């Protein structure tokens, strides 16, 4: 699992870590029953307080995305597989950020949706390899 944090992101760190775990799940680099890095390991890697990682893991456990095997660590729940719930949670965060950005520029929801459509249409004409690869996992 590769987790990176954006130093300019002002959201609480545990939420950012939760989103990163969700992202790796949706993208598929993290699979059911995969172990998550230990709190100590991930904290030292991200240079964050170990308590913050613990909090993120606790919240993910409460949401049923991960579970704890006593003495062994934290693992991805068996029934989580790029499910709708994870995609939705991730999508809502992306939408929130986009909407905030739009409002700052004086744009409404309608405007934003229309322009997203326009940009997506223009991109579809030249699909990149990376996007094609990312979309491969979508068929379920």
């Amino acid at each position, binding site marked *: 699992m590769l987790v990176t944090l954006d130093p300019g992101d002002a*959201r609480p760190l545990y939420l950012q870590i939760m989103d990163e775990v969700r992202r790796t799940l949706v993208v598929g680099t993290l699979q059911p029953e995969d172990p998550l890095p230990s709190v100590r390991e991930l904290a030292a890697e*991200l240079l964050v307080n*170990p308590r913050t990682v613990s909090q993120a893991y606790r919240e993910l456990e409460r949401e049923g995305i991960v579970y704890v095997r006593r003495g062994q660590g934290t693992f991805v729940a068996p029934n989580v597989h790029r499910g709708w719930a994870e995609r939705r949670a991730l999508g809502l965060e992306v939408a929130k950020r986009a909407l905030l950005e739009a409002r*700052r520029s004086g744009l409404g929801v309608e405007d934003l949706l229309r322009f997203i459509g326009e940009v997506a249409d223009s991109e579809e004409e030249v699909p990149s390899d990376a996007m094609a690869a990312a979309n491969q996992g979508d068929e379920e």
Partner: protein
Amino acid sequence: MIRSVESAQGVRGLAVATYGLCKRYGGETVLDRVDLRVPDGAVYVLVGANGAGKSTTFRMLMNLARPDAGTAEVFGMDTHRKDAHVRAQVGYVSDVRDRAYPNVTCGRLLQHVAVFYPAWDAAYATHLSRALEVRLERKVRSLSKGEAQRLHLVLALAHRPPLLLLDEPIDGLDPVIRRTTLALLIEHIADTQTTVLLSTHQLHEVQSLADHVGVLRGGRLIAQMSRDDLEGTVRRYRVEVPDGWMPPPGLRMAGLRRSSGGREIQATLLGGERDVVERLTLAGGRVREAQPLTFEDAALVLLTEEMAG
């Protein structure tokens, strides 16, 4: 002064507490009634410009300087009357990278210090020395400033004390070693029940680590709060305002900027968002945006804020 630690925690559960700490050197006030509250288990970052009183505070906790007024406690023990007991519980890195025992090797110094601490972990000391590139065969006298600093970090951590007092532990280290040091410190916190009080000018380096912050300005502790409170207290606002608009008096703010036409302002304001928005609206403004700040930016605001009106 903004306080939330005390109300949330009471006086119990504090690793470090100072009560009305004052210090004058010559005619100059270095500390002015400082009431520090460091909760047990916290990673508390003390920020302030050079000369704001950070190092003096550390020295008083170690009984290396005496206050003119006020007292200080570590785990409830008076730092003056119980100084030996306090020191036994503390790992201290001083901002003066002193080279006491200049003629012994680093390895010999580690053995010497180990005797004073029953909890000294020799294997851990070796691990730390290796990770921080402290060459044990070198004489202390010949160490550079950065090497002496790293040696002191090893000495501070290797007995796994319940309190670490780290006065600018990463300042002056090169970026690679700085990262290593922070990672070691984080592993240390994960493995050991520790409270950390540290000062630094490298706020961005520790912003993901800190869960409390204290701000010293001109010897006064002008703010101290938890990370959550800091993040909930500071917002950057964009407000549409009528011509010739002045901010309502009593608002605590930093970095007021006006658009060229004067019809929009941007400012960072302290206080609950709802309260601030209400006051801005009452004063004739229309709040367009209230943006949360990163820990570093929010702490910087506390260092520079002024009172409006």
